[in-house]
């Protein structure tokens, strides 16, 4: 009965077994920002240093040429910051550290500063370092593209 259906189901099951083996780097580890002010001719510029890590939990797959974007949101989900990033490689069991600087005008950075309770005056006077850890709920991976490479193929080429 339904021999074609049986073959299709078997093929689907096999595909699922083999494709389910790679775990995507979908967790942002220890995200944080550090805000600093720089005075330029055009006025004050907010320098936002975003840092976090992406972990590769696979045993045999390396992620290569990683490109993506993180977004930082407030508790209501309103977008505060876009952080495009790129990484050369994350080897198996390793973490790729992302440190990215984003420049924003004073008025553009105002909602972010307000949400993290950072004041320009305190930053300028040195009273506040401008460093804030981010909660997981406030950081999202908006896009993530990478090339999957088998670690043995990668190492054999060296």
């Amino acid at each position, binding site marked *: 009965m339904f021999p074609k259906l049986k073959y299709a189901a078997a093929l689907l099951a096999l595909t699922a077994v083999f494709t389910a083996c790679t775990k995507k780097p979908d967790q942002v580890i220890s995200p944080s920002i550090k805000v600093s002010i720089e005075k330029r001719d055009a006025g004050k510029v907010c320098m936002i240093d975003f840092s976090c890590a992406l972990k590769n939990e696979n045993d045999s797959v390396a992620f290569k040429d990683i490109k993506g974007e993180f977004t930082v949101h407030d508790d209501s989900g309103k977008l505060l910051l876009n952080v495009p990033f790129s990484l050369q490689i994350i080897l198996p*069991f390793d973490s790729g550290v992302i440190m990215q600087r984003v420049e924003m005008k004073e008025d553009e950075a105002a909602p972010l500063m307000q949400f993290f309770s950072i004041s320009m005056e305190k930053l300028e006077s040195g009273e506040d370092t401008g460093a804030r850890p981010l909660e997981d709920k406030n950081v999202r991976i908006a896009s993530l593209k990478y090339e999957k490479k088998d670690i*043995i193929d990668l190492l054999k080429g060296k």
Partner: protein
Amino acid sequence: MKINDKNIYIAFIATPLAIAVILCGISSYSLFVKEPAIQKLLSSPETLQDAYIELREPQLFAGYKNWDREGTGVLNTMRFFDKRVYSGAGIKPEERPYIELLFKRRHSGAMLGMKTAAFFLILSLCGCAAFAIDRKRETKE
């Protein structure tokens, strides 16, 4: 409906026997083909990197996905040497003991396969013995 005892016995003998043959085949390939080749590579400082690449492919029963306490050393070794080999720095002769940790894990996996094969073989032999005793009793009756 009468149950066909003979077919049950045959299934009980053949299934574990087939599993034992498969497990034994896989483990024997690792023990008698792969391991001597890797040991040869390990013996020379120039081929340590090749030995590591060979060992980076785990034995089927000693995968690198699940970690017990003893496996932590292997995990750290791989994390370290993946970076070293990828960056082109190679492996130093004094680092050989760490590569041997991977070799020991491969050997343990192969031995686990052999022991599991032996268990299934014993099951199959038990089936054979039970079948023989049953047949003997039937002929007497």
